Each structure stands twice: as structure tokens, then as C-alpha cells.
């Protein structure tokens, strides 16, 4: 009796050793398997040097952090400068090589912001969000002139290029924008080049009909879509700005260089812009 009781006790101990302890150990080890993170980038500004730098920092963080399995960009932007838009677009494409990116258009994804959106895997919008405005705006410099007190070594040293060159560069950039849209949207685009090159901005519902976006939906659907593309579930949503340790954005006037404290609502410097900027009376 005693022997059998001992052997039962020893058998129980064995099972504890070979099942329970490994299970506990396994559970403890499984905690090392990270819960996937869906990084969220809130971008509600125009695309300029400062905001683009912030965006790129967040995208880089997402790319370099294995736990971040996908990114959702909550977008509400009229676009911005050409170079900064291209910088962000290229970073997006680089990130897409390893992690899916979904765009959720809140207020608008116009011009440069739409350029950004075609560099992502899937685009959501609200029915009344504004999307499109594909094209370029150029604020031409003054015609070259010379001044008494300033000397330069060539006629365009101070002006960059002839005014006419700006016009031609606009056309060249438009072609680049068009290519980006065609490649980004691919066969999801349901309209012709003629239509999209008109520079029109459409409500999300029309954008869906034209194939400029993929779906009308809520932010939560965007998260789900990103998770679906990343093949993850039970994810954690994190603001990439916080994860990347970036400070809260300071609203800076992009358009206005604030001459004498006055903020203009349009670019105050000559240049080329992927920008949706409805005409205002005080524009030059």
C-alpha cells in the first residue's frame, strides 16, 4: 500500500516536472514573443521641411523596429513642397518593402498628400474627405534684374533659372506625379489620365468611383486593413511620434514666412509646390 502510494506520488511529481514546469517555462518564454504594434502617424499639416523630417523619422522608426508590423497614416493635408513630398514618398516606398502602410484620409489628401497616399498599400477615406488635386503649382520668381549693390557671377545666380524654366519644370514634375499615381494605383485606377490631370479635387465617394482610393471607411477599418496586410491580430496601436520620441508638433506657418508678423496663406517664396491652395484675394 505504502509502496503504491509512493509510486503514485513519484509519478505525479514526474508529470509536474515534465508537463507543468515546461508549460510554465513555455508561458514565460512566450512572453518574449512581442505583441505586434500597429504604428500610427497622425499627419495633419502641410508638407514642408519640418513636417517631412518628422514624418521620415517616424517612418524610419517603424522600419527599424521589428515590433511595428504595419503603419497607418491618418492624413489631413493639402500637400506641400515638391522636394519634401518626394522625400516622404520615397521613404514610404522603402518602408513598404517590409511593412504594409495604410492611409486613412480624414479631411483631405490633396496634391502632395495624395502623392503620399499613392505610396501606400491601401487608402481609406471618408465620403466627404477630399482627395486628388493631382498637379503642380509654381510661384515664379521675378524676372532677372541687376542691382547696384549686389553683384553675382551669372544672370541666374540670384534667380535660379529663367522664369520660363519654372514653367517647363512644372510640366516635368507633373509627369512624375502622374507616373507615381499610375504606378501606385495600378489597375485600381478607374479613370483616365485626362481626368486626373485636370487637377480636380474630389470627395471621397467620387475618389472611390475613380479608383483614387480603395475604400470608404473608419479609422478602425484602416487599422484592421493594415493588420490584415501585415497578417497580425490582437495588435497594439501606438502613436509612432511617441515611440520615436519626437516632440509634439508645433504649428508653423508653412506658407507665410511671416513678414512683419503677417502670416500669408500662400507660399511667399518662389518655388514649386504639390499643393492645393484655393485662390485667395491676398495672393499675388
Amino acid at each position, binding site marked *: 500500500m505504502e509502496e503504491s502510494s509512493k509510486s503514485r506520488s513519484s509519478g505525479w511529481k514526474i508529470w509536474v516536472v515534465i*508537463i507543468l*514546469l515546461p*508549460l510554465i517555462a513555455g508561458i514565460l518564454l*512566450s512572453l518574449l514573443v512581442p505583441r505586434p504594434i500597429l504604428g500610427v502617424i497622425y499627419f495633419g499639416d502641410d508638407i514642408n521641411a519640418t513636417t517631412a523630417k518628422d514624418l521620415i523619422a517616424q517612418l524610419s522608426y517603424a522600419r527599424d523596429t521589428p515590433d511595428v508590423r504595419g503603419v497607418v497614416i491618418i492624413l489631413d493635408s493639402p500637400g506641400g513642397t515638391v522636394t519634401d513630398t518626394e522625400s516622404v514618398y520615397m521613404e514610404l516606398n522603402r518602408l513598404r518593402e517590409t511593412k504594409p502602410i495604410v492611409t486613412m484620409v480624414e479631411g483631405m489628401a490633396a496634391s502632395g498628400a495624395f502623392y503620399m497616399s499613392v505610396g501606400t498599400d491601401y487608402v481609406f477615406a471618408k465620403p466627404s474627405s477630399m482627395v486628388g488635386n493631382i498637379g503642380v503649382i509654381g510661384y515664379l520668381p521675378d524676372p532677372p534684374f541687376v542691382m547696384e549693390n549686389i553683384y553675382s557671377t551669372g544672370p541666374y545666380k540670384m534667380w535660379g533659372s529663367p522664369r520660363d524654366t519654372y514653367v517647363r519644370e512644372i510640366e*516635368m514634375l507633373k509627369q512624375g506625379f502622374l507616373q507615381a499615381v499610375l504606378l501606385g494605383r495600378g489597375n485600381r485606377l478607374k479613370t483616365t489620365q485626362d481626368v486626373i490631370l485636370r487637377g480636380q479635387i474630389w470627395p471621397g465617394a467620387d475618389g472611390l468611383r475613380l479608383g483614387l482610393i480603395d475604400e470608404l471607411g473608419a479609422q478602425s477599418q484602416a487599422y484592421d486593413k493594415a493588420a490584415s496586410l501585415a497578417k497580425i*491580430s490582437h495588435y497594439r496601436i501606438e502613436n509612432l511620434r511617441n515611440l520615436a520620441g519626437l516632440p509634439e508638433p508645433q504649428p508653423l506657418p508653412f506658407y507665410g514666412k511671416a513678414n512683419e508678423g503677417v502670416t500669408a496663406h500662400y507660399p511667399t517664396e518662389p518655388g514649386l509646390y504639390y499643393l492645393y491652395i484655393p485662390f485667395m484675394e491676398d495672393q499675388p
Partner: protein
Amino acid sequence: MKPIRIIIILVCLLIPIVVRTLWFYQGVYNPAMISTPDYASLNFKEPKLSTPVPEEPIKASIKPIVVFDMSHTNSFLFSEIDSFTRALNNLGAQIEISDYNLTLGDQLKTASAYVVILPTSFFTTSEMDAVIQFVERGGRLLVIADPTRDVYSDYISGTSTNAVDVLNLLTKSFDISFSNDYVYNLEINESNFRNVIYTQFGKSDIVKGLSQLVLYSAQSILTGQNPIVIGDKNTLSSLTDQGGSLILAATGAKDKVLAIGDMTFMTNPYIQVADNQHFMVNIAKFLVTGVKTHDLVDFPRVFNRNVTLLTNEKIPMDSKFLGLLSSVQDGLNLLNIKVQISDKPIEGNDLLVVGTYNIIDDLKPYTDTFGLKFDIKKTEEPSVDEMALETPTPEIPPTETLVPEATGKPEPTRTPEETVVEEFSKGSVTVAGFGKLPIKGVGLILYTPGTDQNILVLLADSVSSLQELSGYISSGSLSGCTVQGQIAVCQTTPVEETPTAYPSGY
């Protein structure tokens, strides 16, 4: 340890890990094929450049005057159209800018063409009437709009004026109006959708020889007249996003009015593109080649050609008459009109006839149409004027052609030439509308406009009075004369009084 136990341990160890992993991760992200634009392949589109148009000065007998309107808050700088003004100069035109000190009617009296570019303050009714009359008499009118700069805002009053509104009021009489739009072409353009390439042209010398024209943002034109630059089916209006034969340039009023919806094409560097330069030169030719019919109100700019100053053998070529000729010549030279003195009309020239009432019969071919009726009593006595002022001029010997035959009446106090010039201190002339006028102290200026020849007749009671009449040419107006139709009646100094070299209105 038995292998089975090892397996169980491993399974138990891995199960939580696997479960947790599968709980979070259902697969591996499969990236879509990512394509980005081939930025390196993008390049500038350079336009086809214009072939320089050789300069062909037009042999106009009179330097045509082209007046540019700068009095209506025009939205352009004169320097911007330097290429155009240079083309006009090359064609022999004289360029004038509208003068605030003169009425538009007065300025257009001397003009061959009037150019109105982007006015943003309204023309008055009298100004519009002056323009209409100017065109009716053959003056050329060029009106140019441009959608890139057609609005003038007055920040003080808070109002703004659109050049299209101003121009349309001016051009409505010619069945031409500008649309408040811009045209664009997304299919075929010169580097930008608003820089449209045009290859369809109407029938007009203005577009002769053009194969491709580029307008850099243009307003379309509505007209039932003669369209000369027409957009293709892909050229659309911003108002409707519809196209189909939009008109960008048109002529009206029997090709005397030219309306163009773009100014930029004639500025640098766009003038060098396609056939733009050619078009601009054609426009310049259009402006300088118009033949304007004149009225006497245009005096003294009543000639379209060089002038033959017709002399009469019965008027001696003495110092006084030479003074008259010199005065006329100087006055017309000031108007860039060359004067040839001859006793016969010269073909291709306009005619200026000077004569005294005593030779009115010889001047009938030039005065008949005016229905003048003379009642002249010849006086045998030399006038005070002649007696006091006319002295023989031995340094200028009379020539055979200039010295008429003697009348046979003894004139002991006069030279043989002077005897020919009879003074008519008594008598009258009946002029339609004026009634009966004494010929003493009254000069008549008669004008007959014609397609091939304009004729101006100066009539007075003496050479001295004729000199006074010729002074009106120098003074530039008939101020002091009464003008009715093509007849002006001017007061001259009666021969008893001390004559003056200038008209009373000078």
C-alpha cells in the same frame, strides 16, 4: 530520461510560445511589387523656336501713327511689348502713347491705328464714340485681353474692374466680345495646359504664313465676324470645360478691328516660340497698312499720301507766294507728309490746291462738288496789301511757266507778275449752309476725301490771306474757323489791315 518525456517537455515548453505567436501573427507580410516613377527619364519639353521674320519696311508715303492707349489703367508695361513696338517702328510707324491732355477724338485724328491693351478703367461715351468713328473712317483698332492680368483692384475703394468688361463695352459695336474665361488644352500644349498650340487659322493676312501659333493663356472671343485663330476640339474654355472651335483672335468691322485674347505671346521670351513672331509682325502690318478716310475735322491730318501742292500759273511765284509754299511745306512736314510743288497733279499723291478767288474758274475741278456760287466784282485798283507789302523780287526771275500772260490792262505800279493777281475786295460767295459771305477777309478750306486721292483746297482773297490759311496747318487745328461738313470758313485779315502771318485762332 525516456525520449517520450523529452518530447513532452519540449511540447509543453513550446505550446505557449506557439500559441502566443499564432495569437498575434498569422503569416508573413507579402509586400506588393513596388514601382516608383523613373524620375531620371523626365525632362524638359523645349518649344519649337520661331524663325526670325525678315524686316520688310512698308513703303508708306506717310508715316503711320499708331496710338497706344495707356489712359485706362492698362494692366501692362509698355516695355513688355517692346518687340511689338520695334516691329511697328521697323515698318515705318510712329508710335504715340495716349495723352491725358488731349481728348481721344483729337488724338485719333492723326492716328492710323489705335491699340488698346488690357484697359481696366472704363471708356467714356465720347471716347467710345471717337473709337467707333475712327474705325468707321478706316482706322485700325487692335484690342487685346489677357486672362492672367485682367483684374484691377483698387484697394482704397475696395472695387475691382475686369478688363474684359471694359473691352466688351468698347468692342460691342463691332460684334466682338471677350469671354471671361481662359482656354486650355490638356492634350497638345506648349509645356502647360494653358499654353495652347493653335494650327487652325481663318482667312486673313494677319495669319498668313502661320503654321503654328502658341498663345500663353488666352481668353476666348465671341463673334459673328471673322475668326482668324481657332482652337481644336481639345481646346476647352474654363467656363464650361467644353471646346469646339473656340475663337482666340478675330477681325471685325470689315477687317478693321482685330481682337486677340492674349498679350503674353508678344512678350519675351514667348515671342520666340513657334510662329509667334510672324503673327506679331503680321499684326504690326495690319496696323500700319490701313487707309483711313478723313473728314475736315481731322485737319490738318487729312492726307493719306504725300502731297502735291498745286500751283497756278496765274499766281506769280513771288516772295509772298514762296512764303506761302514754305509755310505749307513746313506745316505738312511736321506731320511727316512730304510736299511736292507742281503745276499738275501727281499720280499717287494727295492734292493741296491753293488759290485766290480770282482764279476760281481754274479751280473748278476741285471746288465744283461744294456748290459754291461766286458773285465777284473785279477791282482794278491794287489793294493796300499789295501796294504796301509786295515788292519786286529780282533775285527770283519769273519763269515761263509761272508767269502768266499779261492781261493787257495797264498796271503802272505793279510788276508784270503782280498784275496777274487781281485782288477782289468786293464780291461774295454763297456757301451751302453758311449763306452769302463776303469774300473779303474770308478764307475757305474745302476738303474732298477720296479712295485714291484726298484733295484739300485753300481759297482766299489774296496770297496774304492764303498764308494765314496755311497757318492753320502749322497750328494743327481749325480753331477759329467754322466747320460744316467738308467746308471750313475762316476769317482772314482784310487786306486794308496789317496782315499777320498767323490765323486768329493760333
